């Protein structure tokens, strides 16, 4: 099957510091690539480079007609800005020349109400906010969805809902996804491929082949003795491990 995205020998230097070195991976239609790694390992830089926001060496090849939907971890902007999602959706619809019907359909499918669209962004709950960001990403029928820890700021039931929603859209539309995650349960359940990032080395492949206790220890810099147990029963405990091994 044709690749939606093909990355070869990608190197990114920012301010004379090498953030990413020689990264290669392919992503096909319907696949989910999980990107894992400690804080500061360049996960977000990788996503932004794919979005075209940073200069790079190597090649990033997108299939013709690739449309990207992006769901950020959080928004750095002042949440008290006098704007609502109706303004933001209007901007995207304007740039992509989308019909009102397209926007309405996506909002209905994700389950975003009209009231939410008219509420100032700063007044939305974390769950409403993330869900509307997902709807924002999904309008315009993207072929590649990029998610940067989209569930970091919401509680667990909503997190599961959001994952399920993304997965449903992937099934229905054959969407490829790149998903930065700290959550190994998610990686095992949904990812078809895993890319591990850190400064000392990296891995790429299917989750069960790549994510051995040895690679995880190397990746996060501490033994994760019970990871096999955690990923089945209580993935919250994994967050603690993952946040510790900062490499920068």
């Amino acid at each position: 099957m044709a690749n939606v995205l093909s990355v070869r020998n990608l190197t990114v230097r920012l301010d004379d510091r090498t953030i990413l070195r020689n990264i290669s991976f392919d992503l096909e239609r319907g696949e989910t690539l999980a990107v894992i790694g400690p804080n500061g390992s360049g996960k977000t830089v990788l996503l932004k480079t794919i979005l075209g926001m940073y200069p790079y060496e190597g090649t990033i090849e997108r299939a013709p007609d690739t449309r990207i939907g992006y769901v950020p971890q959080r928004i750095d902007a002042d949440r008290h800005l006098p704007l609502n999602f109706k303004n933001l959706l209007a901007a995207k619809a304007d740039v992509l020349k989308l019909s009102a019907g397209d926007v309405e359909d996506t909002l209905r499918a994700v389950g975003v109400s009209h009231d939410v669209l008219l509420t100032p962004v700063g007044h939305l709950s974390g769950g409403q906010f993330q869900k509307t960001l997902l709807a924002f990403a999904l309008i315009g029928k993207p072929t590649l969805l990029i998610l940067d820890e989209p569930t970091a700021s919401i509680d667990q039931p909503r997190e599961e809902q959001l994952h399920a929603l993304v997965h449903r859209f992937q099934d229905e539309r054959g969407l490829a996804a790149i998903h930065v995650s700290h959550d190994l349960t998610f990686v095992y359940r949904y990812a078809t491929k895993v890319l591990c990032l850190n400064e000392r080395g990296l891995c790429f492949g299917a989750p069960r082949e790549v994510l051995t206790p040895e690679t995880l220890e190397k990746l996060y810099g501490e033994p994760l003795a019970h990871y096999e147990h955690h990923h089945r029963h209580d993935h919250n405990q994994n967050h603690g491990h993952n946040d510790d091994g900062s490499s920068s």
Partner: protein
Amino acid sequence: MDPYSITLALGTAVAAGLVGSFALMKRMTLAGDVLSHIALPGLGIAFLLKLNPLIGAAAALLVGTLLIWRLDRSANFSTETAIGVIFTAAVAVAVLMTTSEELIDALFGGFGALTPIEFILGMLAVVLVVAFVFRFKDRLVLTLFSPELAAAAGLSIDRLNLAYLLVFALTILLGMRFLGAILVGALIITPAAIGRQLTHNLSAFLAISTSAAVLSVVLGFIIADRYGIQTGPVVVTVAAVLFLLSLLKRKR
């Protein structure tokens, strides 16, 4: 008082209210003061060459705008530091080459009578600024809310930023004529601060900022005319009083 000057001042107020709203959201409210001071050496050179001072100011503003745009793009440089250096250097150079009388005009506004050409070009600039804001308001909002979302939606953030900065500089140029380098920043920022205080919604925000700017200019002109004092400082004082009044409203 000359109706052309008043018309152009009102048009300038509309432009400043709109452009200022985005400056406030982009957290670049002090950029107005910086750019207006960068315009000073341009004014000085124009005075020396006996040119229309606004031509000199326009040229200096263009250079300043491109400079700020470039600096803003390079991540490995503190934009604020650079702007601080350039801005004070510009003032120093301007003071060295301008007579004190011209300098007062340049700093506080009011140089010369308005010529028909200046009026027409000024009104064209107003129309351009207003049209730009209405055409691109949603895109501007998207880039300032999240550059990543804007990039994913296929927007060229760099180009939009440059366009906005140019429109911003044009608004400064319009305002320099009657407010001068020191006060023009106030017409950009104070009405927007009032709008921000009173509303949560983009359209209402733009409407209130613009109305506050227009009201400041109208009241400023009336008061200045009645008491025979300089217009610019009165306009800015009125805007500041309106801002204080807006603080009485408790924001949700």
